[in-house]
């Protein structure tokens, strides 16, 4: 496996093999890039980098003919949360990098002037970004396509990233590295885009057993109503009505339950009123993506964050807000979180301007001002945590570790609440995703307002997803694929036996590594916003630390680190 490092300040490009034992311990994707980040970026002091390195990582399945696995991850220290942050994307960039023989691409330092990277015919170059920096994304893409053709994969940031908005996202082929402000990091590095040609190299790892597993994988997908009907027919928005019915959807910055008219911005509404065509990531039979009259999306989280959350129940208006965020390169969840908070602050006279729930026209103006970091947007561009501190109202900032919460109200699903509190990347629904158990009966339904055993269930699911993110299979596969399946895939593609239990241990190792990184950054709290004080967190947290083998303040002890082959010298605090 090959690691290619681009030193942006010196324009030096270095290649190095990735140690086989490191791959055995961390697999690829999230695990491997987290390990590299942890090794390379120990502290701001003593480092020659002005910013965190950013790693783009592929997995052992990337580029093979395997469903839902043509993805890649990006890992860095988040400019929004300061935590370690891995994000997964369904664009084709990873597949194309792999065909060029690049397994991990690392960016370090800050370029002297705005640039973009290109990989063509196995050659990586650093190019001046004069014609694309400061331009709209659509214009920038057109310029790059003119140079490199329509067949290339383009990863790029929008104006929000260039301007350092702390929750700016990154786009690749209409899919997104949505959360954590990785767009702001690329902007700080002065990297506008990465363009990768189709590539002709052969990706190794395919074989008879991999084909058999791919076949069985697809059989299971087609046997599940979630992956064979719900998501294909209505996209991720299919979740909205279910969550509303269970009382898991809130409005007005988590101050009220979502009203019945939320149905007007559901997946069904997207399908009947907006849809142009369905979009699939590379080799995905589900095709949950929606291409609408307003471009990509809106997806479930956005239907909530820019719709229900802001009391906007006109599907076209929600789609327009989504289009603006996508165009400027803003994470729609965080943007909706910030706007929802701003409405509350305005009500309470804490803002120097007026903003009301449902006021779409002002929100459109604000999205542009946020992305351009000017006027009213300058204040809102910092994210909810910093905004709450600035205006003296932290209780209105609905975040965990600085990351705005998504579309599942933890007061209706206690395990999900614990998931937010303990997530290594902050207020995110994805690590653990106990909503599967608490609301969707996947694999079985549990009492969503009970706490018995929730912490143990969550820790197990966090470990499994860390492994799956390292093998790099789309999270939506978990709606149909049981946990033991992934170890069999890993064994087949990596050419050595990895038992089911070993795969969970690898996930646990990654989870602990991320935890250690955050502790090193001084991030120690596992809490929920004050607004959710009725979630019985304390009891669950005690069980959580216990099953993780951490001490009562949540620090992994020497025995646990030894068991996971994580050394305090290399990986610890």
């Amino acid at each position, binding site marked *: 496996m090959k690691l290619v490092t681009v030193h942006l300040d010196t324009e030096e490009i270095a290649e190095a093999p990735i140690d086989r034992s490191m791959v055995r311990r961390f697999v690829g994707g999230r695990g491997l890039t987290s390990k590299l980040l942890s090794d390379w970026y120990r502290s701001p002091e003593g480092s020659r980098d002005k910013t965190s390195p950013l790693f783009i990582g592929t997995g052992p399945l990337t580029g093979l003919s395997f469903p839902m696995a043509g993805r890649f991850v990006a890992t860095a220290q988040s400019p929004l949360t300061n935590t370690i942050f891995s994000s997964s994307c369904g664009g084709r960039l990873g597949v194309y990098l792999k065909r060029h023989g690049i397994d991990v691409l690392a960016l370090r330092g800050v370029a002297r002037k705005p640039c973009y990277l290109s990989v063509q015919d196995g050659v990586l170059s650093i190019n001046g970004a004069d014609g694309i920096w400061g331009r709209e994304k659509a214009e920038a893409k057109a310029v790059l396509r003119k140079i490199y053709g329509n067949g290339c994969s383009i990863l790029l940031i929008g104006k929000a990233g260039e301007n350092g908005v702390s929750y700016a996202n990154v786009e690749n082929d209409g899919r997104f590295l949505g959360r954590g402000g990785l767009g702001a990091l690329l902007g700080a590095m002065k990297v506008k885009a990465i363009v990768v040609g189709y590539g002709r190299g052969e990706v190794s790892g395919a074989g008879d*057993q991999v084909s058999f597993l791919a076949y069985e994988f697809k059989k299971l997908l087609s046997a599940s109503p979630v992956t064979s009907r719900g998501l294909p027919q209505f996209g991720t928005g299919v979740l909205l009505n279910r969550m509303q019915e269970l009382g898991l959807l809130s409005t007005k910055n988590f101050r009220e339950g979502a009203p019945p008219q939320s149905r007007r911005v559901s997946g069904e509404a997207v399908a009947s009123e907006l849809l142009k065509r369905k979009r699939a990531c590379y080799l995905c039979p589900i095709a949950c993506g929606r291409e609408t009259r307003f471009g990509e999306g809106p997806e479930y989280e956005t239907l909530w964050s820019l719709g229900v959350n802001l009391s906007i129940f006109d599907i076209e208006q929600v789609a327009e807000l989504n289009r603006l965020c996508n165009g400027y390169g803003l994470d729609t969840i965080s943007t909706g979180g910030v706007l929802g908070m701003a409405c509350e602050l305005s009500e309470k006279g804490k803002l120097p301007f007026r903003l009301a729930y449902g006021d779409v026209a002002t929100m459109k103006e604000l999205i542009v001002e946020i992305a351009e970091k000017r006027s009213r947007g300058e204040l809102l561009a910092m994210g909810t945590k910093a905004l709450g501190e600035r205006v003296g109202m932290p209780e209105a900032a609905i975040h965990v570790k600085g990351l705005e919460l998504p579309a599942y109200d933890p007061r209706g699903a206690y395990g999900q609440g614990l998931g937010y509190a303990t997530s290594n990347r902050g207020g995110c629904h994805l690590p653990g995703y106990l909503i599967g*158990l608490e609301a969707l009966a996947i694999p*079985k339904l549990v009492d969503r307002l009970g706490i018995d055993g929730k912490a143990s269930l969550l820790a197990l*699911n966090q470990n499994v997803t860390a492994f799956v993110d390292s093998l790099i299979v789309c999270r939506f596969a978990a709606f149909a694929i049981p946990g*033991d399946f992934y170890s069999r895939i890993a064994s087949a593609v990596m050419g050595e036996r990895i038992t089911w*239990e070993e795969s969970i241990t690898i996930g646990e190792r990654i989870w602990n590594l991320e935890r250690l990184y955050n502790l090193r950054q001084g991030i120690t709290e596992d809490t929920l916003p004050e607004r959710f004080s009725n979630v019985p967190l304390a009891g669950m947290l005690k069980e959580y630390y216990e099953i993780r083998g951490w001490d009562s303040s949540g620090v992994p002890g020497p025995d646990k680190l030894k068991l996971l082959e994580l050394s305090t010298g290399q990986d610890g605090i």
Partner: protein
Amino acid sequence: MLERATVGMIKEVGRDLFVRGLISSHAGNISLRMGRTIYITRRGSMLGRLKESDLVGVDIERADSRVLMASSEVEVHRAIYLRTSALSVVHAHPPYATLLSLLEDEIVPVDSEGSYIFKKIPVVSVEKTIGSQEASVVISEALQEYRIVMMRGHGSFARGEMLEEAYMLTSSLEAAAFYAYHIREMKEYRRFSDKYKTW
């Protein structure tokens, strides 16, 4: 102290195991893991008629006097929890699966549901089949790779995230074993891919 809903769930699964004929009156055992505590059914309890007092909380590793009341298979359950990520375990004596375990080294389902769920079920064998150290080792080892395992001539051990899942596996195993056993008498039948033997 367990929540009422948790106790209710254990009682229902115990009842279902008995009603489905997957255990005799005083056989089988059930456990859950929460943190470092295992809640396991009492030694000699009737799973079909469980009461809250039939559930015993023991540490996952450390010996204490509460083990006096715990199921005779407690060491097997402990080994499973220590060596795997299981959060629930169901041990039952499903008749057809037990019968097949005496005839085969692995059970490969011939029916559709069994094939989707299991692909195959390993059969392990030891001299002392109940609650022994050697049984703990082979069962917990098999459950590192499979969701359910048959102890030859004795019964099944299923692991799950949730109890319902471990029960489902036990119940589905018996259904699959029923078909697989009876079809042995037929000369010709349509088989699934031999690839399932590689699972």
